[in-house]
């Protein structure tokens, strides 16, 4: 008897015991004399079901989860049948997955991430092959027309950035991938790098053709050891199979990729400090202009894009700009991988068109809190994103829609907090984090964050004069900082103050 199982290699699955499950499966199969093939796929994104083990049958792939090593014997006993209590039936039919629109993540969790053959068998490289038959200008136009905006947080139109680089004259241009995904609640970059690295590689090559760049760098944070390993192996495989190197797929086009590892500095997720870090310098922010598009890595024209922006390019080239643009709302086109995290029942990655309301995401998809207590606040967009109260749950998920409520979409991470959360403490943390991670170049961020922590402490101690100072300080940071670290730290702080005033006055009352 033989059996084909999928057990994810994704870091979240590993963190929840996937390696122990693999060992248990091997041991149990050997004991029973069953020939078992284990594919280490990426994650389907249902972290609440990880480790999610799938068995391949004629009718499709059947899911079991969350599986622990101690469940393995009983799963074999039940013949991996749907009668087992951990069975969820066909994976594709699980509501959390079925209700998504998976474009960027279409292959993540489905294929063997390190197999280029598997990648191609599931629609990979169609976009690249089409791009190879197009001119750079045509590719740039296609990406511009798709409405794709930078998924790293700034939301800048990707096609326009590419055009600037394409129009620049230089001997050498670069594609730099910002994989320094440091925002809490975000793990989309990590998941795609661990689950479908060739999508990112394909997107980088297409970008290279579009702007005339022959070299790409992926700057991955050191906190992602698993993503670093998978990306390095995928790049090596790609090189060995002629996807990368002196002649991409035999086209004569040159493109190669190097993986670089960060060193624990949050601010290096900011594109100009990332470039300095890549050059071997302190990760200090650069003033703009000059734009990195014109004077980026080594002073040469450089596309700096987020992982998800580039990983979305292949599907745009495959299906066309109009197809992609058809999803979404307003000026937020296409799909967005929502990362639902924190104190939430059904945490994970959910790719869908822009436009769901925050309430639908948190209550319906996320299922409310894991603790079962009422949701107090949702921080959207990472440590620099605003805290949204339930009163704003009607806000549709889109760049302009969130900006209109003094918040931001960011990298689309959502952290759910229950009613036991002290928002004054969260505001203080935002400032403390900014103080730790500030690169030190500009005064509003470097000193403002430190003074901000002190001022919040004064509010906590009941000082009535401190609140206007905090407001003023946040205003200075917002408008006076060089980059988003100092400039956006006021979002979590002021949203906490505005939407949860009780948490700031309770301390005062206690002091009086």
């Amino acid at each position, binding site marked *: 008897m033989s059996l084909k199982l999928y057990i994810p290699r994704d870091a979240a699955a590993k963190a929840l015991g996937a390696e122990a499950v693999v060992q248990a499966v091997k041991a149990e199969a050997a004991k029973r004399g069953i020939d078992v093939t284990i594919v280490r796929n990426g994650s389907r994104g249902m972290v609440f079901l990880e480790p999610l083990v799938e068995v391949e049958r004629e009718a499709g792939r059947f899911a079991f989860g969350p599986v622990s090593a101690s469940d393995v014997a009983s799963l074999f006993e039940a013949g991996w049948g749907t009668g087992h209590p951990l069975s969820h039936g066909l994976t594709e039919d699980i509501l959390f997955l079925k209700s998504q629109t998976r474009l960027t993540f279409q292959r993540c969790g489905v294929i063997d991430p390190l197999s280029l053959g598997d990648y191609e068998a599931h629609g990979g490289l169609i976009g690249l092959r089409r791009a190879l038959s197009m001119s750079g200008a045509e590719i740039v136009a296609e990406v511009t027309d798709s409405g794709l905006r930078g998924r790293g947080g700034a939301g800048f139109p990707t096609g326009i950035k590419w055009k600037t680089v394409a129009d620049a004259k230089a001997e050498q241009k670069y594609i730099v991938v910002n994989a320094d995904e440091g925002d809490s609640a975000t793990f989309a970059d990590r998941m795609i790098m661990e689950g479908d690295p060739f999508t990112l590689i394909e997107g980088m090559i297409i970008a290279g053709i579009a702007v005339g760049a022959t070299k790409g760098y992926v700057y991955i944070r050191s906190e992602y050891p698993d993503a670093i390993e998978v990306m390095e192996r995928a790049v090596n495989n790609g090189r060995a199979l002629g996807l990368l190197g002196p002649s991409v797929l035999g086209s004569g086009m040159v493109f190669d990729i190097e993986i*670089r590892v960060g060193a624990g500095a949050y601010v290096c997720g900011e594109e100009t400090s990332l470039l300095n*870090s890549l050059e071997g310098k302190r990760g200090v922010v650069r003033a703009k202009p000059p734009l990195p598009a014109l004077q980026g890595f080594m002073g040469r024209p450089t596309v700096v894009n987020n992982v998800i922006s580039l990983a979305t390019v292949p599907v745009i080239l495959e299906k066309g700009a109009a197809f992609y643009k058809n999803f979404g709302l307003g000026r937020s086109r296409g799909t967005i991988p929502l990362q639902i995290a924190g104190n939430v029942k059904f*945490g994970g990655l959910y790719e869908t068109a822009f436009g769901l309301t925050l309430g639908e995401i948190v209550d319906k998809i996320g299922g409310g809190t894991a603790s079962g207590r009422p949701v107090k606040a949702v921080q959207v967009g990472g440590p620099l994103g605003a805290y949204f109260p339930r009163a704003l749950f009607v806000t549709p998920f889109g760049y302009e829609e969130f900006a209109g409520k003094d918040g931001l979409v960011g990298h689309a*991470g959502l952290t759910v907090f229950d009613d036991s959360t002290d928002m004054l403490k969260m505001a203080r943390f935002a400032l403390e984090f900014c103080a730790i991670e500030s690169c030190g170049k500009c005064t509003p961020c470097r000193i403002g964050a430190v003074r901000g922590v002190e001022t919040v402490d004064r509010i906590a101690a009941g000082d009535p004069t401190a609140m206007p100072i905090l407001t003023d300080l946040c205003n200075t940071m917002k408008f006076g900082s060089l980059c988003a670290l100092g400039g956006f730290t006021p979002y979590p702080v002021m949203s906490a103050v505005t939407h949860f005033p009780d948490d700031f006055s309770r301390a005062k009352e206690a002091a009086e």
Partner: protein
Amino acid sequence: MPAHPTEERVREIIADHMGLEGPLLPIFHAIQAEWGHVPQTAIPVIAEALNIGRAEVHGTMSFYHDFRTEPAGRHVVKLCRAEACQAVGADHLAEHARSRLGVDWHETTKDGNITLEPVFCLGLCACGPAALVDGKVVGRVDEATLDRIIAEVGA
């Protein structure tokens, strides 16, 4: 891990990376991978090889949280302190870790066994509180899990 960093070996590591554009961070990483820290004696050697000032080498190294000037304990436990983990009790867990080990952040237990470090996000935000133990990810860490981890590494 060779106990004593030699200038010869440092030069070899540097030579391996001289073909890279912007080789300094990869050099730091490679040296730290070999000796667990970047020894002071390596700084002038790197400066000379890259034709930059010692101050610049030192300044770059000290900018990044990852690079150590002294070796860590035999095991490194990193606990996530970021918001998503805070939402599920990371602060409480951190308190437990510090009192259990008798150390504060960035410190090593007296027997040199465990170094405790904060980390701001491991990308395990839907299964927090998260930890990285000697480079291996662990999710949904509670006090009992942490005690087990500490016991496993022999503290």
